[in-house]
């Protein structure tokens, strides 16, 4: 008896759930276009947008041919208080090397380290890799503070808000702190090194697509993951500009999984024509292009990144493309900044490095310069004058 009742309850419950799901699918069918505005409100920052938009047009100051030492609109700070003789120990709290961009930079940084060791500026660099974890990185920084015996802290934060207290603790030691790539919510570090930023990326890419497309054309935006400010800002800027220009843009999260990217594009192509592809990072760009090949339709107008796999596919297919750049050469700057700080030379408080996309006119030049480099290498890695060039990057020996 009880069994029968339980069975009936189970069936009724399941049926109710099924009805419920039927309800959840229906509204989503009818109101797909209302939501995108929300994310814009959350991540869009007009002041930052305007600042980065302006910075795109500024000719950077600094030594010619050494973009990793150039800076835009810098406000210099005095570092004479840190001036001191001898080789110093650098402690590097790294967020991770879990993507090809970070790996390329990490290789470059280690080659830069060798140069500075040979110069007698840096004695050694102790590195802790946080493996994309805020908790681990906090522990890493605290370890460096307690027993690292560090002369300078170099921090590439895993996330902005969560890393702020740990960075403040590092600052409190009185030793110089250098932050690069993602930022923190404190200006206690001596210098914060980063390329112009995500909004500039979004503006460059969206303007390119808008120039090459007609009003009413469709752009599929392939995004790695939600919630990371550098990535969200890229999309926030692009989405706003697409919206203003009357370009229809739909965005997807792909996790950089090429299988996912192919599925998304083939579904979109089954729905209707797609004229443009926008990416917030180049990882997986080749899969996106292949999806168009497999479907037997014309190549889209596309923005990827300066990752070589994309540049080569771009060249091979002859599509209309742009490779926005999140300057990988910034990985050289922190150690050089440390050297300058101990020499008492002034450095920019906020060290904005140049960030300019690779266009079809300089594609060949970058392909030639990076001949023999693996697909995951970044064209603007800026390490051509370092001792291990080109073998270390070609063989992609990760230290």
């Amino acid at each position: 008896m009880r069994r029968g009742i339980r069975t009936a309850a189970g069936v009724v419950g399941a049926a109710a759930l099924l009805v419920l799901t039927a309800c959840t699918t229906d509204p989503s069918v009818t109101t797909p276009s209302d939501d995108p505005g929300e994310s814009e409100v959350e991540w869009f920052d007009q002041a930052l947008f305007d600042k980065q938009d302006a910075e795109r047009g500024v000719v950077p100051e600094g030594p010619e041919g050494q973009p990793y030492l150039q800076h835009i609109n810098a406000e210099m700070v005095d570092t004479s208080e840190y001036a001191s003789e001898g080789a110093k120990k650098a402690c590097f709290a790294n967020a991770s090397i879990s993507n090809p961009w970070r790996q390329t930079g990490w290789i470059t940084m280690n080659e830069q380290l060798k140069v500075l060791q040979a110069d007698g500026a840096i004695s050694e660099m102790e590195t802790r890799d946080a493996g994309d974890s805020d908790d681990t990185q906090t522990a890493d920084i605290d370890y460096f503070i307690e027993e690292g015996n560090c002369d300078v802290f170099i921090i590439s934060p895993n996330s902005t808000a969560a890393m702020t207290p740990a960075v403040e603790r590092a600052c409190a030691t009185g030793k110089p702190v250098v932050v690069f790539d993602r930022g923190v919510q404190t200006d206690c570090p001596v210098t914060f090194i980063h390329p112009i930023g995500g909004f500039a990326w979004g503006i460059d890419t969206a303007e390119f697509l808008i120039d090459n497309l007609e009003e009413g054309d469709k752009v599929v935006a392939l995004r790695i993951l939600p919630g990371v400010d550098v990535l969200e800002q890229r999309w926030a800027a692009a989405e706003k500009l697409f919206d203003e220009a009357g370009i229809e843009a739909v965005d997807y999260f792909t996790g950089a999984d090429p299988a996912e990217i192919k599925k998304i594009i083939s579904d979109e192509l089954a729905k209707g024509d797609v004229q443009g592809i926008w990416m917030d990072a180049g990882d997986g760009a080749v899969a996106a292009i292949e999806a168009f090949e497999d479907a037997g339709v014309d190549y889209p107008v596309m923005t990827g990144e300066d990752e070589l796999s994309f540049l080569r596919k771009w060249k091979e297919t002859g599509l209309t493309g742009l490779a926005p750049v999140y300057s990988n050469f910034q990985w050289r700057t922190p150690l050089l900044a440390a050297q300058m700080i101990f020499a008492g030379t002034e450095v920019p408080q906020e060290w904005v490095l140049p960030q300019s996309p690779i266009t079809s006119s300089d594609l060949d030049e970058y392909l030639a310069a990076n001949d023999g480099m693996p697909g995951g290498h970044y064209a603007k890695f800026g390490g051509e004058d370092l001792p291990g060039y080109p073998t270390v990057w070609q063989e992609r020996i990760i230290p």
Partner: protein
Amino acid sequence: MSTTDQVAEAPALGWGERLRKFGLMLVSPRGAVYLLLIVLLILITVLNPRFAEPDQLMRFIQRVAPIAIVAIGQYFVIVAGEFDLSMGSLVTAQVIIAGNLVGQDDSRSIPVLLLMIGFGLLVGLANGLLTTMLKVPSFIVTLGMMLALLGGVLFWTGGAATGNPADGFRQIGRGGIRDLPLIDFLPWAVVVLVVLLALAIWFSKRPFGRTFIAVGDNVAAAHYSGIRVWWTKTAAFMISSTSATIAGVLLVGYAGVHPSVGRGYEFIAITAVVLGGVVLGGGRGSVVAAVAGAFALESLFTLLNFAGVPSTSRDAIQGVIIIAAVAYAAATFGRRRRRPARPTSPAGEEQAPSPVPAVPAPTPATGDTPQQGGL
């Protein structure tokens, strides 16, 4: 002895008879997954009529093929009463192996392919022996294997893509026979899937195939009836790791090399299998339903794409639908299970065309024991 009777009976069934049974099954509660699949396909077609065109359909099957193949492998493990959580990471490992070892040299395709199959079998053997010989629960063994494989991949690649292998190697997953009448394009992946599914159906009707279900249903009874339990379970793991290998080969072609390829496949496969009405804990289920489960899951993904659901809410909606579908399947399946003793002859067969009553007499009796605790 009763096992041989069943085997003799199965091939005697005519195709018409099987078709009739399939039709009956569809309307019975057991056909929940097929119904779900059909409903999803109809919804997709309503939203986008082009989907129903033969070439689009072929491309759809092509992309579901890897996950369906993984589901076939997972089916054998689950029906034998175990789990294989290492499948997704094995797919990833195989994709990376292919990318790194084949490189741009087509002539290495065959040796590397053999190496991959060997490596896959080895992983399955290790999973199986650790589970059966050391009596470590397979959930833990394969979880450990998953971490070991992912760690190995991370160590080898540093977590980033290495570049795609030669185009020749990628043909299996990406290419196909073109310019055919009617369907226009027949991807190799579809051929592979059809062959594997046919093999799986044939295998699960063989005496050895039936021991998987017997072992999953009741290990003790299986043991006393002379089944080598350790070998059956190990074979299940080796089948699943081989299927992960094949899925990996297809994915290298379809998608390319990236450490994220294969991520989450073990859970998609388990969900697909459960969606297909296969009972976690073993002893019940059909491989065709597991494959249908995989197709239903992927259709759901496509439906959400076509419906233009915002990217941020997609996962949540997908999750709710899966829970509902599994709950529905489980409830109806459970109801069916609770009255197994009554239909002894043809009626009982009808509801379970898959080799469920492999050991007809003991099944209802022994089936009751885990049921009270398990359900």
